[in-house]
C-alpha cells in the first residue's frame, strides 16, 4: 500500500470524457498525476498533463509509476490493465464499469501472479483525505482523521464519508472496492491492510443486504483476524426484499437449473449477512446516524 502524496500516478484513458474530468479533479485535489495514456494522442496535453501512446513510454520520462487509474471503455479494460502490469505498475484502480466477468478472471490471474493490487472495477477508488485522491471521490466531503472506510457501493460511500465529516469524524482512508461480481480486491484484503495501517483507529464496512458483495465473508474475517474496532453499515435492512438463495456463491445459485438444491437456509441473503455480524458481535448500524454513534463509541473506547 503506497498512497503518499508524492506517489506517482498515471491516468489511462485520459482523453475519455470521464477520464479527462476526473484527471482534472484529482490534480486539483493534489494528486501527483504525472502522465496520461491514450493511444493515438501521444504528445498532446490534457489539463497540463502530458499524454503518451503507451504506458511504457511514460516511464523513461516520468520515472517508475506507482498507480494507474483506468477510465478506458469496458472492452479495452483488460488490455489497458495488462499493459500497466507489463510496464511494472503494481497498483491499479479501475473506474470503468460494464467489464465482462471473464476479462476480470484473466486480470485477477495476472494480478495474483505479479502481486498487483487491483481496486474495482466499477468503483470510486481510494482517497486519503487531505493527501491524495485516486478515483472519483468528491474530495470536499472528506476530512482527514482516523476512520478507515471500506465500501462496495458508489455514491453511498460518499454519503457515509460526508455524514462522518459532518459529525466531525475524519477519515484515514476511504476505499470503494467496487460492486461487480468479480472485483480485484476484497473486503478481507482491505481489512488486513487497514488493520496494519498506523493512521487507522477504526474500520467502517459499508455494504448492502442484497447484491453480490461478500459482506458475510468480511464479518467472519473481522472476527478471525482484525484487532482494530470494526463497525458495519448495511443498506437495505428495512426495505422488503425477496427471499434469496442461501449458497455462498450467489452467482452460481442464481443461475443453475438445480439451484433449489443449493439452498442451505430459506431466509433472505440479507438475514444471513446481518446474522454474520451479530454472531461475531460486530456493531452493525441500520442507518447512517446510528453508524456515526457506533463509530464515536468505538473511538472513545479506544482512547481509554
Amino acid at each position, binding site marked *: 500500500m503506497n498512497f503518499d502524496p508524492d506517489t506517482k500516478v498515471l491516468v489511462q484513458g485520459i482523453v475519455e*470524457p*470521464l477520464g479527462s*474530468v*476526473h484527471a482534472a479533479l484529482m490534480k486539483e485535489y493534489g494528486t501527483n498525476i504525472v502522465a496520461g495514456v491514450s493511444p493515438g494522442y501521444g504528445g498532446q496535453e490534457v489539463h497540463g498533463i502530458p499524454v503518451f501512446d503507451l504506458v511504457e513510454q511514460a516511464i523513461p520520462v516520468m520515472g517508475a509509476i506507482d498507480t494507474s487509474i483506468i*477510465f478506458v471503455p*469496458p472492452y479495452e479494460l483488460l488490455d489497458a490493465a495488462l499493459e500497466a502490469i507489463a510496464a511494472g505498475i503494481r497498483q491499479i484502480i479501475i*473506474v470503468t*464499469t*460494464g*467489464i*465482462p*466477468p*471473464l476479462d476480470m*478472471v484473466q486480470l*485477477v490471474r495476472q494480478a495474483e501472479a505479479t502481486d498487483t493490487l487491483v481496486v474495482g472495477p466499477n*468503483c470510486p477508488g481510494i482517497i486519503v483525505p487531505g493527501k491524495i485522491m485516486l478515483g*472519483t471521490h*468528491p474530495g470536499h*466531503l472528506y476530512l482527514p482523521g482516523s476512520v478507515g472506510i471500506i*465500501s462496495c457501493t*458508489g*455514491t*453511498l460511500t*460518499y*454519503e457515509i464519508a*460526508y*455524514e462522518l465529516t*459532518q459529525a466531525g469524524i475524519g477519515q484515514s482512508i476511504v476505499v470503494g472496492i467496487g*460492486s461487480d*461480481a468479480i472485483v480485484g480486491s476484497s473486503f478481507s484484503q482491505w481489512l488486513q491492510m487497514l488493520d496494519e495501517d498506523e493512521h487507522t483507529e477504526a474500520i467502517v464496512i459499508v455494504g*448492502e443486504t*442484497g*447484491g453480490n458483495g*461478500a459482506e458475510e*465473508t468480511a464479518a467472519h474475517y473481522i472476527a478471525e483476524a482484525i484487532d482494530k474496532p470494526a463497525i458495519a453499515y448495511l*443498506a*437495505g*435492512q*428495512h*426495505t*422488503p*426484499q*425477496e427471499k*434469496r438463495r442461501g449458497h455462498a*456463491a*450467489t*452467482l*452460481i445459485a442464481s*443461475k*443453475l*437449473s*438445480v439451484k*433449489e*438444491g443449493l439452498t442451505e437456509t430459506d431466509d*433472505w441473503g*440479507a438475514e444471513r449477512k446481518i446474522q454474520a455480524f451479530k454472531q461475531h458481535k460486530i456493531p452493525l448500524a*441500520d*442507518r*447512517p*446516524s446510528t453508524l456515526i454513534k457506533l463509530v464515536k463509541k468505538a473511538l472513545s473506547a479506544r482512547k481509554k
Partner: protein
Amino acid sequence: MDLLEYQAKELFREMDIPVLPSQRIDRPTDLKGLKIPYPVVLKSQVRAGGRGKAGGVKFVENTIDAVAAAQTIFHLPIVGEYPEVLLAEAKYNADREFYLAVVLDASARRPILLGSKIGGIDAEAVMEQMQLVVVDGEFSPFYARRLALKMGLEGNLIQAVSDILEKMYQLFVQRDLDLVEINPLGVSATGEVMALDGKVTANDDAIARHPDLVKLVTKTSNRPKMNASIAQSSRMTEEKAAEGDFPMLTLHPARDGNIGVLCNGAGLLLTTLDLIYLAGGKPASFLNIGEAILQAWTPTVLCDRLERGLELITRDKNVEVLLINLHCHATAGDRMAVVIAEYWQKRASKARLPNDFKMILRLVSSEFSRAQESLKDCPVTIVENLEQAIHQTMGLVKSKA
C-alpha cells in the same frame, strides 16, 4: 440473458457436443413437415424452470397427436411465460443421466466445473452427488478429467464425459457466458453420451462483442419477465439496451405507497428507502438513474438521465411526493437543479402534474447555493441533510393525508 433450449443446442452443435436430431416448431402445423421419425418429444421453449411437471413436455407417436399436443403446449403458460416456439426432438433411451455445468464462481474468482452422477429434475438428488473443480489457471483438459474422477466415473466414461466438459468450457470462454449447463446428459447402455437438455446464459456486459450471440437471441422476441423486487433491482435497475450506449432506465413499482424516490446510485437508493420505511412512509415507485461513475457518463448524459427519470417516475399516478436524492460531483449540482427547474416548469405549465404534487431535492454538491438559486421560482424544497430531507418528505406526505 438466458437462451432457450433450442438456441443452446444450436451452440452445442457448433461445438460438436452431441445433441439429438431436432426441429424448431413455430406453429402446430409445422409438425406436418416434421423430418424426425416418431416417437418424438415436444418441448415448450420457455426460460422458466419446471416445464416438465407443468405439462410443457409431451411424447407423441404420430402427426395427429403431435399437432394436438403442440396446440396444448402453445397455450400453456409456464410460470406465466407462453412459449413462442416448441422444439420437436427425437426420443432417447438413456441408461443413466448425469449433470454437468460450467459457471463463474464469484468468490473463487474463477470458472468452475460442476458435475453430478445423478442428473434430471430431482434437484435434491442431483445436489447430493454434486462435485466441483475450480479452474485455477489456464484451462487444460485435465481439469475436466479431475471432475469426471470426482464424479466417480471409470474407464471410457472418464474420457467421454471430460470431452463434453472441455467443449462446454470452450463454449463458455469463447462466448463469454455466465453459464453452460447440460442437464441431463444422457448415457446410453453402450457408454455413449448425449446432451438431452441444455441451458446457456449469456453475460449482459459481454454479449455486445459476440454478434452471432446477439443474432441468436434476437431471433425470438420473448424476454425474461422483469422481477420487481428490490433484491434483484439493486443489480437489475440498469439493463443494457440492445442498441443504445447507456443502460436503460427501469421503474420499480412498490405497493400501496405514495412516495416516489429517485437517486443516483443503488446503495444510496437503498439507504433512502430504509429511512422512508423507518419514518413510517411507503414508497410507490423508485428509480436509480445510475452511479455517477458509470463509464462515459458526461454531465450531459447524467442530466439527460435525470430528465428521463423524472418523466418516468411521474407517470406513476400513485406518486404524490417525489424525493430526489443526488450526490453531484463531476456533474455539477447546479446543472441538475436547472434540469429539475425546467422539468417542473414545463410539466406544471402544461398541467401534467397534479396541483398538490410535491418535490423534495436532497442535494450534496459544492454548487449547493447556485442550485438553490436555480430552483428559487419552483415549489421544490431543497435541503442538504439526508435525515432532514426524509423529515420534510414525511411532513409533506402527512400534510396531504
